[in-house]
């Protein structure tokens, strides 16, 4: 028997409210299943369970509960070692079974593919949304495993006959959004204030900044995008993110959590990506294992995350797993940004917008695309010398974009 508890979706979360159970008492749950929707200051979050077994004792909906409060109990997997053939009802102790009997394999339980951030949309529904010009990611799903179904599409087409067409932009302007249950901008502002206040009180920040030539990356990017459909094109942010993730993988002192007076490095780079929300506030959900994702996959992850951050449907693991944060202000932002570390992380990288500046190339001043990268890091864990090497590694990665 194990307890399923209220997750901490970041250090700034103290309480949450279960607003929907996606399971019923007695249901079988598997690690990674989304089983509840919890309302927090970041809106309604799909909460995953990392236990296997039978769930019971669900708390009633609507109660505000502190982090770590027990929300349900999970009884362990029913005798995982028993053969899949139904056991005789007479009480033969398991030890009495001859050990040479092969355990029958029973591929009866649906296999779940490894955790994917791809939204579940039935093939028929996806086909139908394309015909109607509806973005299926904006629909709430009522099908198997929460998939968007034909009925969901029909409801939406009925409700919003002029849905905006899906576009490749990661900042869709008029995409209809699923109502963000319980999202309260004032509450989010208070949570940001608490987390950033704690950061500035507790973390001795130091700051470094470099300007990096983006010319090689830009020409590589133009060549890549020239031959591709709009939906497959990459944004400059993807190269910046990948360069950052690769560099962070080389310098573990910037990737991890500072907990109970000690730094705990985190081998995978779960890159928190700061996303501004319309209506104010921001979240920084994780792109898991960002250092291993090929660029097109990273682009997909980015697009998916931005849409879900704004439309609802972020998962609890995306909010609790980031090991470091990257912020990029994009082409409408400022030239540079100096970040505030999100505790208990120990570093934040900031990219300014990409701008044309005079740049000296082999003794000549030429106009060149450049980008500012900054590091704010925790002096309890690392020093400026190492921070400089991290920025240099990002620079060097961006000079060889074909190896990203």
């Amino acid at each position, binding site marked *: 028997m194990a307890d399923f508890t209220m997750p901490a979706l970041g250090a700034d979360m103290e309480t949450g409210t279960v607003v929907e159970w996606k399971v019923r008492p007695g249901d079988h749950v598997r690690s990674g299943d989304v089983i509840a929707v919890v309302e927090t200051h970041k809106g309604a979050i799909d909460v995953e369970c990392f236990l296997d077994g039978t769930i019971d004792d669900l708390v009633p909906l609507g109660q505000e509960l502190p982090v770590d409060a027990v929300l349900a109990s999970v009884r362990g997997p029913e005798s995982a070692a028993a053969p899949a*053939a*139904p056991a005789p009802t007479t009480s033969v102790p398991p030890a009495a079974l001859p050990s040479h009997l092969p355990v*029958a394999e029973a591929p*009866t339980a649906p296999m779940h593919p490894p955790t994917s951030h791809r939204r579940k949309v039935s093939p028929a529904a996806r086909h139908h949304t394309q015909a109607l010009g509806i973005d299926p990611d904006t629909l709430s799903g009522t*099908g*198997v495993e929460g*998939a968007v*179904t*034909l009925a969901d599409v029909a409801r939406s087409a009925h409700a919003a006959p002029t849905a905006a067409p899906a576009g490749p932009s990661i900042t869709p302007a008029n995409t209809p959004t699923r109502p963000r249950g319980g999202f309260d901008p004032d509450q989010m502002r208070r949570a940001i204030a608490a987390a950033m206040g704690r950061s500035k009180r507790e973390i001795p920040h130091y700051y470094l900044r470099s300007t990096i030539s983006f010319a090689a990356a830009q020409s590589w990017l133009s060549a890549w995008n020239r031959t591709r459909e709009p939906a497959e094109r990459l944004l400059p942010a993807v190269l910046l993110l990948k360069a950052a993730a690769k560099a962070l993988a080389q310098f573990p002192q910037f990737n991890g959590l500072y907990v109970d007076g000690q730094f705990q490095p985190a081998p995978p780079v779960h890159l928190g990506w700061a996303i501004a929300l319309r209506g104010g506030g921001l979240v920084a959900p994780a792109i898991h294992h960002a250092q291993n994702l090929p660029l097109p996959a990273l682009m997909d992850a980015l697009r998916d995350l931005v849409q879900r951050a704004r439309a609802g449907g972020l998962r609890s693991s995306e909010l609790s797993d980031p090991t470091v944060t990257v912020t990029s202000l994009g082409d409408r932002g400022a030239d540079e940004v100096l970040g505030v570390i999100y505790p208990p992380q120990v570093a934040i990288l900031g990219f300014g917008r990409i701008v044309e500046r005079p740049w000296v190339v082999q003794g000549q001043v030429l106009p060149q695309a450049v980008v500012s990268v900054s590091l704010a890091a925790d002096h309890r864990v690392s020093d400026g010398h190492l921070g400089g090497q991290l920025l240099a590694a990002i620079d060097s990665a961006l000079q060889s974009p074909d190896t990203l």
Partner: protein
Amino acid sequence: MADTTPTLRMSYREACRQALRDALMADPRAFVMGEDVGKYGGCYAVTKGLLEEFGPQRILDTPLAENGFTGIGIGAAVAGLRPIVEIMTCNFSLLALDQIMNNAATLAHMSGGQFAVPLVIRMATGGGRQLAAQHSHSLEGWYAHIPGLKVLAPATVEDARHMLAAALADPNPVLIFEHVVLYNTEGELDPAVQAVDLTQAKVRRAGSDVSLVTYGNSLPKCLAAADALAAEQISAEVIDLRVLRPLDMATVIASVVRTHRVVIVDEGWKSGSISAEIAARLAEDALYELDAPIRRVCSREVPIPYAAQLEEAALPSVAEIVATARALVRPQ
């Protein structure tokens, strides 16, 4: 008038017997051969009385030698006769697999069309009668893998009554799988129907929410499941495949186009099975019609147990079909 026809309602076993009798009367080249088909009357009593009626020239008891007498059947067919070979259960047909696969299925191709093999092999298949693991398996899916064969799975009295004649009319080898549990079931025969095709799957019950695709003894289970689902306002369409090779995917896909959800019910095991083949073809050819994952209800991946409760638990059940279909239509 219907009540002037004396044998409208009959058992599946009786339908099989009448089909054999008709075939023997219609064509002097036809004969029946197999283990215990003569004096004993067939181990499922399908050939009872035929020896007395047609004599030992037409009803031949063979030794327990499946590869041998199946080979004799192939030779007889090539030489111009119309043999109907009975193999006691499909489990034993593995002994004849070499003849079935390497000779019956290939000769027409290897001889450049010079030799046809108009052979019919009937076998009993399936579990549910406590005959244990060497007499209870459903191997028709294996045979459906083999090009050159036609594989039939009569699930109704009508198909049991009329598929044999169509099989004998086919110039190539045809395998008929008769489910052991079906022999004792009864059904109505429409006297207006005097022949059936060997090409089409049939919609046995129309529905709009989910397609139950099945054959053989899983058909009555699916029909019972559809009744139970109807009580929950879920409308299930039941497709009887009838012919496992060649598969009539057009009928299956037409059903999925109506319902967008599918449960395949097959008494064979899941791995590498006819249910897997149907699922694959739906994924290949009807993906964009699917509004939910394809689901399958099959036998547990164990040798079919002898003990009654274990056997029942190992085979597809009505409750499991209902639960699987319901979970597709009403996920929450």
